[in-house]
């Protein structure tokens, strides 16, 4: 099996799907000849031709709108939004259209589009290259939201998303593109090749949507995370010496409620970690769900470790970024109780 970075794994997912299905095409700003600013679509135009992987005007709303129209025709467009911070111009087409077309037409039309976008911090991207907007999609009925944390999952989840007949928002933690990152920015960069989840089959396979994965079993406390924060959570658990059970949600809508509830019922404690700003973030939903489903099993308040309720300030990357220290502090607090 090949070792792949997350970029290569994502590229491979599109490659496999374009090979299998002539209705799969890729579109977005700079994705064609150039292969995308993060090189995720590299080589696809060359391999499949101009019309199957092409550049678009800088109009995220227009990109998604035309993709929706293509979807209605029977195409499965895979759209790249260059940064998740630039997805807001497409919010109306996603919320009012993609998410509703099946419902409002009583099932006559649907929207098999996948919207990929790099998101999250840790790259000194400042406020407009670091945001984590997953909650504003999670709130919208009719959209699925997927966030991988490693190359293997990235490929399998992206294939599942492309094959899904409903619109999927596929957020890629850009800090993980070239290697795992646990928040220890002071340490040397680690390549994916040293991580077991970089073993990626070249062929078609699926990681099903809606299924979380226990990435570390433990008995003391459940840690819910996704994207880059999975690695931060693992580091925090390891360093704290607390026997945390770390769950990588992988899909946040629909979230794997069974996995979450089973774990918290076992551990009695829960820490939720995400990069997005705290207020009304997806951590609030997770906290509410855990509380509703595991109230009588909880031995301590559920903790949220999240981005602060401010924009992402460029100079203060590491003061702002949710690192292991903040997660450890939360783990310790919940274990005290």
């Amino acid at each position, binding site marked *: 099996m090949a070792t792949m970075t997350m970029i290569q794994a994502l590229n491979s997912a599109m490659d496999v799907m374009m090979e299998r299905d002539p209705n799969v095409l890729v579109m977005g700003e700079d994705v064609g000849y150039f292969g995308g600013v993060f090189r995720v679509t590299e080589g696809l135009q060359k391999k499949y031709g101009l019309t199957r992987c092409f550049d678009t005007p800088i109009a995220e709303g227009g990109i998604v*709108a*035309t993709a929706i129209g293509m979807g209605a025709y029977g195409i499965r467009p895979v759209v790249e939004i260059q940064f998740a911070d630039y997805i807001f111009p497409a919010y109306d087409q996603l919320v009012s259209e993609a998410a509703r077309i099946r419902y409002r037409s*009583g*099932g006559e039309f*649907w929207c098999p589009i996948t919207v990929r976008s790099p998101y999250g911090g840790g790259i000194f991207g400042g406020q407009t290259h670091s945001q984590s907007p997953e909650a504003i999609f999670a709130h919208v009925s009719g959209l699925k939201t997927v966030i991988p944390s490693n190359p293997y999952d990235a490929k399998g989840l992206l294939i599942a998303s492309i094959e899904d007949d409903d619109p999927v928002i596929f957020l890629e933690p850009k800090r993980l593109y070239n290697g795992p990152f646990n928040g220890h920015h002071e340490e040397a960069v680690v390549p994916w090749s040293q991580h077991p989840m970089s073993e990626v089959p070249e062929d078609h396979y699926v990681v099903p949507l809606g299924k979380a994965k226990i990435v570390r079993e433990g008995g003391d406390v459940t840690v819910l995370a996704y994207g880059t924060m999975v690695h931060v959570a693992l580091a925090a658990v390891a360093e704290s010496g607390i026997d945390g059970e770390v769950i990588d949600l992988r899909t946040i809508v629909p979230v794997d409620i069974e996995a979450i509830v089973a774990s918290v019922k076992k551990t009695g404690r829960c820490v939720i970690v995400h990069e997005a700003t705290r207020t009304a973030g997806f951590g609030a939903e997770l906290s509410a769900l855990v509380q509703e489903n595991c109230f009588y099993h909880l031995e301590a308040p559920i903790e949220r470790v999240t981005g602060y309720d401010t924009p992402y300030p460029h100079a203060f990357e590491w003061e702002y970024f949710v690192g292991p220290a903040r997660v450890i502090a939360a783990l310790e607090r919940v274990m005290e109780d």
Partner: protein
Amino acid sequence: MGHMIRNEPSLSLHIPQPKCRPGDRVDFSTLDLPAAGEARRPDVDTHPDEMHDMAYGLIRVLDDEGRAVGPWDPKLDGQTLRKGLRNMLLTRIFDDRMYRAQRQGKTSFYMKCTGEEAISCAQSLVLHHDDMCFPTYRQQGMLISRGYPIVDMMNQIYNNARDPLKGHQLPILYSARDYGFFTISGNLGTQFPQAVGWAMASAYKGDSRIASAYIGDGSTATMDFHHALTFAAVYRAPVLLNIVNNQWAISSFQGIAGGEATTFAARAIGYGLPALRVDGNDFLAVHAATEWAAERARSNRGATVIEFYTYRVAGHSTSDDPSKYRPADEAEKWPLGDPIERLKQHLIVRGEWSQEDHQALEAELDAEVRAAAKEAESIGTLGKSMPSPKAIFEHVFKEPDWRHIRQRQEAGI
């Protein structure tokens, strides 16, 4: 930063105002309306830059006497025209009945297209059955012309047990895939770039289907309008981009959308797209312009923007009272007349129709609409009959997820 005192005139903010408001005398005399037959007909392969003038003129075929004149005369046979007349008339009668049904509390909402019937009824004769139209809420004439059962339209309007959209949608926001009629959105403008995407997909596949999209004068201000024209121009999408300029957007006259400074057709020029500006109340002109644009699209020459110049005779919707913001007799005075009257007149002039034929047709269609209404109402009107409430949780996704299952259980449905 302080304001420097300079010898400069002070600026002032311009707020566009319509010529007349309630109480004013209606005055359309300043409208520049070229005579029928005047507009030239460029070849279908004309370069857009060679036909800018078409964005400022007005394609008109029917003259005041009801004769077809000039190079745009589509030379249609009587049978085709009678079909168009029937569809327009059926649309109007349908509108009138459903408007009354709303007033009688049989549904929550209705919107008429009175005065604009020629646009969708003529276009649907040109488009193929497997072309897709991306309508607004004022293209019911297209659905009717394409033979969609009017009783199903009513079932949708009444959200009754036979509502094809299962109670999910506001009245009149139809969807009819098998009739090439895309699901109507309540959000203005969104369908315009979607149509471009659909057309791009057809080109991508090497098929021959084209798309036809509709937008109101007011809605040309939406981002979607710009996206549609940009993408259509860049990828040369086989799509008709129809702007229905009916002079009003609820209470805002078309100057608020930018109609004071130029025509809406002129927007096309900036994207390098060809534009046609057409008398939207002239069935023959609509037909001819649509043929021109469809031929262009089908021959891989890309998109055409068509402005249909018309007038919204009724209120915006059943929630609206236009006498609050425009003179009550403005509609009557609209100088381009009524599309049904004008086509009828033309057929009579041609000797292919008579007042009696017309009355007979009206009676027939009235009976048809009545019968359909009776059938729909026998199933039930809003609240009296409904699709199964299970439908609340269906079609969010292809398959419900655990939340929909749990919530349906909680709801006891």
